[in-house]
């Protein structure tokens, strides 16, 4: 009998191709939209969170310019720092693990026929510690190299790929503008940062080498400070602000001409933003689910006259109420399952394609998929089954006369 019911349901589905297709389509659209949007939303959140954490945890960044600007915004006209500022922070402020003065510029680097526009940073070995960089091969700078400002460099993975291809870069020569420079180390790849920028696209040289040979001054553009894990970054931030205000002779009541960014703060702000974004995406997804549901509802309601007559005919030839209902239920469930599966498949492929395109990880969230699947199924069953139940309660002759 069960098998017979399933056969009946399948026959009915096949017979009413258009209605079945439209019903399934409603489910497909709803489920696909939710699956794709939520997957992408989660991927973006994860990408931002992990991108920020890759910048280095407990990291503070000191930059010239009034507070309120964003990190990485156009360099202000405010007085630059110098190496002594960094040294003062390292010496006088507690809870600090590593302080890295950084001077940087966009420079064309050349090896043989290959050239590659990259950012060059002049700094100290503390830079690697503060940014939690590790070496893939080679070594860091020696004290002698840092002191003398020797033309040696540590390069990122992206630079290696573009300039050296398959050959081992260690010990090879690289030209930064006119300046020849020996590669002594290769950094392990970190991947994309929080803003989608490539953190591996970098060449690092001793600060003195940068100041003397590239910048031609003794300026430091910004200072990265890593606080110790057991220290509150807010306090370190306050201490740095006080120290620099003193060193730069900024009186009380005057505005700072520098700012200290707390990456932990930025990280939580960013993840708040992405949470809001994910919420928005989910709302959009919920709307499409609703639209799909309304589509199903419409089709079911439009076909209710015909279906009521069908029920009348079946009852008239001796079908029991529950046999008719079982058929309609199986029909609705089969369509919902079928539509749901296709919807999930389409949604996941869309999400995978978009993840590749947006360069965010593909984060599979089973609860959402199952949830949207169940919602659509519920709509299908609700609007397929309940009108049928009403019709099956009628006298067969009334069902047959239904208009």
């Amino acid at each position, binding site marked *: 009998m069960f098998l017979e019911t399933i056969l009946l349901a399948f026959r009915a589905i096949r017979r009413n191709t258009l209605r079945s297709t439209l019903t399934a389509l409603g489910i497909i659209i709803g489920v696909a939209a939710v699956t794709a949007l939520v997957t992408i939303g989660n991927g973006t959140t994860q990408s931002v969170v992990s991108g920020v954490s890759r910048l280095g945890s407990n990291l503070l960044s000191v930059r010239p310019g009034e507070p309120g600007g964003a990190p990485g915004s156009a360099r202000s006209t405010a007085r630059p720092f110098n190496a002594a500022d960094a040294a003062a922070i390292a010496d006088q402020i507690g809870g600090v693990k590593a302080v890295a003065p950084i001077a940087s510029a966009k420079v064309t680097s050349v090896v043989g026929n290959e050239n590659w526009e990259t950012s060059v940073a002049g700094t100290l070995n503390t830079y690697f510690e503060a940014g939690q960089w590790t070496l893939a091969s080679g070594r860091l700078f020696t004290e002698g190299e840092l002191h003398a400002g020797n033309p040696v460099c540590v390069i990122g993975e992206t630079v290696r790929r573009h300039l050296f291809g398959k050959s081992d870069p260690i010990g090879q020569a690289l030209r930064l503008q006119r300046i020849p420079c020996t590669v002594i180390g290769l950094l392990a790849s970190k991947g994309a940062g929080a803003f989608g920028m490539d953190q591996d696209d970098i060449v690092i040289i001793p600060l003195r080498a940068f100041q003397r040979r590239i910048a031609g001054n003794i300026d430091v553009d910004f200072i990265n400070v890593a606080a110790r894990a057991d220290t509150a970054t807010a306090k370190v931030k306050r201490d740095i602000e006080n120290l620099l205000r003193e060193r730069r002779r900024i009186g009380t009541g005057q505005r700072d001409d520098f700012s200290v960014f707390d990456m932990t703060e930025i990280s939580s702000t960013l993840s708040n933003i992405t949470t809001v974004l994910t919420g928005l995406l989910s709302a959009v997804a919920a709307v499409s689910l609703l639209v799909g549901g309304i589509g199903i509802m419409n089709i079911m309601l439009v076909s209710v006259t015909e279906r009521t007559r069908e029920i009348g005919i079946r009852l008239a*030839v001796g*079908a029991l109420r529950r046999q008719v209902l079982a058929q309609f239920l199986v029909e609705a469930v089969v369509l919902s399952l079928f539509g749901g599966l296709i919807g999930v498949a389409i949604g996941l492929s869309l999400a995978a394609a978009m993840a590749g395109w947006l360069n965010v990880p593909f984060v599979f969230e089973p609860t959402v998929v199952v949830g949207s699947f169940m919602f659509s199924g519920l709509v299908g069953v609700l609007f397929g089954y309940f009108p049928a139940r009403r019709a099956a309660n009628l006298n067969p002759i009334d069902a047959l006369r239904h208009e």
Partner: protein
Amino acid sequence: MPSTGPVLIKLQDLARSYGQGSATVNALRGVSLDIAEGEFVAIMGPSGSGKSTCMNIMGCLDTPTGGHFYFRGLDVGALSNDQRALLRRHYIGFVFQGYNLLPRTSAIENVELPLIYRQMGARERRSLALNAMRQVGLAGWENHAPNELSGGQQQRVAIARAIVTAPALLLADEPTGNLDTARSLEIMNLLIRLNRSEGITIVMVTHEPDMAAFARRIVRFKDGEIETDQLNSKAA
């Protein structure tokens, strides 16, 4: 009343009204009628006289608003929906005035429909359905959907669906209403054969005296009541 066997159907003061208040239509107002097993009864009467209403009640498709309807001594009014469905499934074949075929469903599948609910295997179902289609002269039309068939052909599919189960009682509401004389005669011969050789009790509504002449008993309705109930001496 003439009877050839035990009573199959007993209508006792049967009434059926539609609507309420001043809009009430009394389609049946106290109909009493006994039909014995093996009878062939024609019901005649002007349009709107309550023939279809009475047939629907006899087919357990509708419930009366007054009086009683007994099927083989069973008070149908006291049965549940499912029990009436089982009566229809096992004892009754019904030809609707308006055919009532499943749309987009081949003729043969329409004819097979009652057998599905009798839990019959696919092969047996198919052969019985083919046989019924042949009996109504529709061999070769098995795979046509109702909308690809003429009115008369649809009517014959409806007849085939009603006789495929070899029911104890065949209720036919104007089964030849859409057929030409030659086809009508064929169908009448089929009904007589089913009545004589298989002992199927037949109640048939018709407007045509020529068709009513085949029945052994003619009941005339007027305004929801039985006007006359006569034996037909001319019956073949």
